[in-house]
């Protein structure tokens, strides 16, 4: 059992007063087989209620509707989460590799996983790189995905503030650097190109172990391996996901998982500062 305290804070400041604003935060940890959300608390510096709602992809969101003018706003969310140790991957050696690839080519399989088999604007390999990484069909799917994880990790260098949410995959592949989100997009694009369903996961990473990706929300991949199910890979750190990964949501790419979406009525520049703190409690 691992007890975590997660603090997500964001501060927005505006050049001119904001008259009305809506925000939607997709930051609440999920309840699933390996993690349990014990408590969540929300606070804002403005006098507005916080509503919870379910978004189009069935994830819980927190929403604020601010009707009074303001020039800056702070939002803070604190979560307590208990994680259990992820079960180790079983029977990898006993898998029949051929069956594995046959399953990927089954029509019903392709239909059921369609959303995670096709590229989006952020996860489509550019034409000139379409063959950048091809799976070896003499090996099992899980073996291939592990190798891909290592390949993405070595192909890109972790570097902050050189890419943005809309940086194209072509630029990321060429310049060979980026943050967790870029690692994840590249991984998804290649897995999908090789007919393996892959989804973008947004969540928190426990920072204590010197992993890349701290102080912001983290991103990793879940891959659907036939006969095994969805399995998490963290290409930014070249590991399988474990108890240090606390999941919030998944989708086709970053756009489905953006932690913060909002609409506001104002003019001029604005600044956003946000921070994530994950602490481990004995």
């Amino acid at each position, binding site marked *: 059992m691992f007890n975590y305290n997660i603090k997500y804070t964001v501060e927005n400041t505006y050049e001119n007063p904001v008259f009305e604003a809506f925000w*939607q935060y997709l930051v609440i940890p999920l309840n699933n087989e390996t993690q349990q959300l014990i408590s969540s608390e929300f606070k804002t510096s403005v006098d507005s209620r916080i509503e919870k709602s*379910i978004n*189009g992809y069935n994830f819980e969101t927190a929403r604020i509707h601010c009707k009074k003018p303001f020039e800056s706003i702070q939002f803070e969310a604190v979560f307590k989460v208990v994680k259990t140790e992820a079960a180790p991957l079983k029977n990898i050696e006993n898998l029949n590799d051929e069956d594995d690839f046959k399953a990927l080519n089954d029509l019903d399989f392709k*239909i059921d996983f369609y959303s995670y088999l*096709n590229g989006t604007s952020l996860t489509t390999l550019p034409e000139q790189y379409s063959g950048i990484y091809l799976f070896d069909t003499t090996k099992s799917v899980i073996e291939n995905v592990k190798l891909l994880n290592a390949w993405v990790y070595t192909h890109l260098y972790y570097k902050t503030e050189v890419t943005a949410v809309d940086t194209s995959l072509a630029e990321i592949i060429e310049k060979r650097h980026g943050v967790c989100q870029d690692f994840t997009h590249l991984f998804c694009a290649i897995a999908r190109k090789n007919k393996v369903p892959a989804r973008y996961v947004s969540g928190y990473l426990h920072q204590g172990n010197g992993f890349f990706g701290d102080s912001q929300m983290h991103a990793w991949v879940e891959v659907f391996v036939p006969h095994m199910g969805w399995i998490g890979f963290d290409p930014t750190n070249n590991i399988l996901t474990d108890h240090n990964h606390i999941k919030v949501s998944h989708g086709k790419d970053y756009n489905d998982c953006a932690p913060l*979406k909002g609409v506001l009525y104002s003019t001029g520049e604005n600044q956003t500062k946000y921070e994530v703190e994950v602490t481990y409690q004995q």
Partner: protein
Amino acid sequence: MEPTNFKHLFSSYDSNENLFDEIFDKDQNVRQVYKKIFELYNGHSIDDFVNLNNKAKTFFFNQGITFQVYNDTKPKEKIFPFDLFPRIIDAEEWKTIERGVLQRCKALNAFIHDIYHDKNIIKAGLVPMELIGSSANYLTQMVDLDPVAGIYNHISGTDLIKHSDGKYYVLEDNIRCPSGVSYVIYNRNALKRSLFGVFNHYEIQPVVDYSENLLEMMESVKPKGVDVPTCVIITPGVFNSAYYEHSFLAKTMGIELVEGRDLLVENDFVYMKTINGLKKVDVIYRRIDDGFLDPLEFRKDSAIGVPGLFAAYKKGNVTLVNAPGTGVADDKAIYTYMPEIIKFYLGEKPILNNVHTYHCSRPTDLKYVLENIPNLVVKPVDEAGGYGISIGNKLTKAEVEAVKKVILENPRKYIAQPIMSLSVHATYIDECQSFEQRHVDLRTFTLLGRDKEFVLKGGLTRVALQKGNLIVNSSQGGGSKDTWVLKK
């Protein structure tokens, strides 16, 4: 043989053997249903029609019945061109049309449900998955979501033409935000004002009951637990080309016309801001495209939507008419599969014909299209209003090459159909002050609700005002006619 009924008003009327003329048969005799009106019209002089035409124009102008044309510079407000000669459809013929469009709308509804649930038609190998998934109108957010009474395409507009073989063919199914129904009602009004006398000679089905049926349909799909639903229409605003229609429908249904900023979502319920405070809204006829409905769920740059609307919809607290994601079946590439779709869900043979459609994402179709452009109409799958259409026999050699190039750049985006010869109908032409042949089509309006089906007995007959032109969309300079469905 000297044609018997060909008199002065129609003296300069062309005839073309290759086209189906709605009024005259092959021997130049007036068809039975038109006999009386032909006689009546011939009792007037051309000067009368010049006067009447001006009167009708003034009526449309004074009523503010206009539409906007978008082009490269700035939008232009135009009076909707209305024609004095009505189109007449006899009761028997109408029965077939009505059964046919209902069949299509029901099959499409079942299809949309299926592709957001079990995807049986795809698993059966009848419709390729790529076509659905790659459609810009497929909304993953709609997967497994069940709209009230299972209805997606509450309001459909089906475009039909009559080919030279005298049979009706469906050109398109419009199930996003089909517009034009207000013109149907105003065309009837305008004709009654101009030539009231002609209505004494025919028993015509009314069109004025559309709004009450629309409201009844909207109320039939109210959310669970609501007693008397509050219904509204949401419009993108006064700059939308169909704003006139939005306000017309709201006015005739006696419900509010709202914009995004008039609505507010709290705790997943939708409210309308009124001078008496907030009022809960239960059914929204939305004339806003999917992507703009909710900036928190779809396009974040939408300034015309309502933040949080989709979550309220998903929870079943409000009904959206038509359902988001319905446009996936509106995609012209899906049209190719309509005969299979009807057979698969209804176990019936299609009542109305489909125009053979080549889809450029299929290699054999693509090859055929590239080699036969001069004989085909090429259309983008996801545009509306007649934009982006190329008609093969009107293209120069250079233009043919240009069309080939755009198809090859993105084959998924294009379909092609044989050039259908739309039937022609006598139409009063302003510039030459006489009646001439012009191509026409017909848009029908169908409503589906809980235990409710309704097809407006009439429809919008659109006229291509330029001689020989086949594009009838009002945004491309088309006009329209009052359309009569006879009672017997």
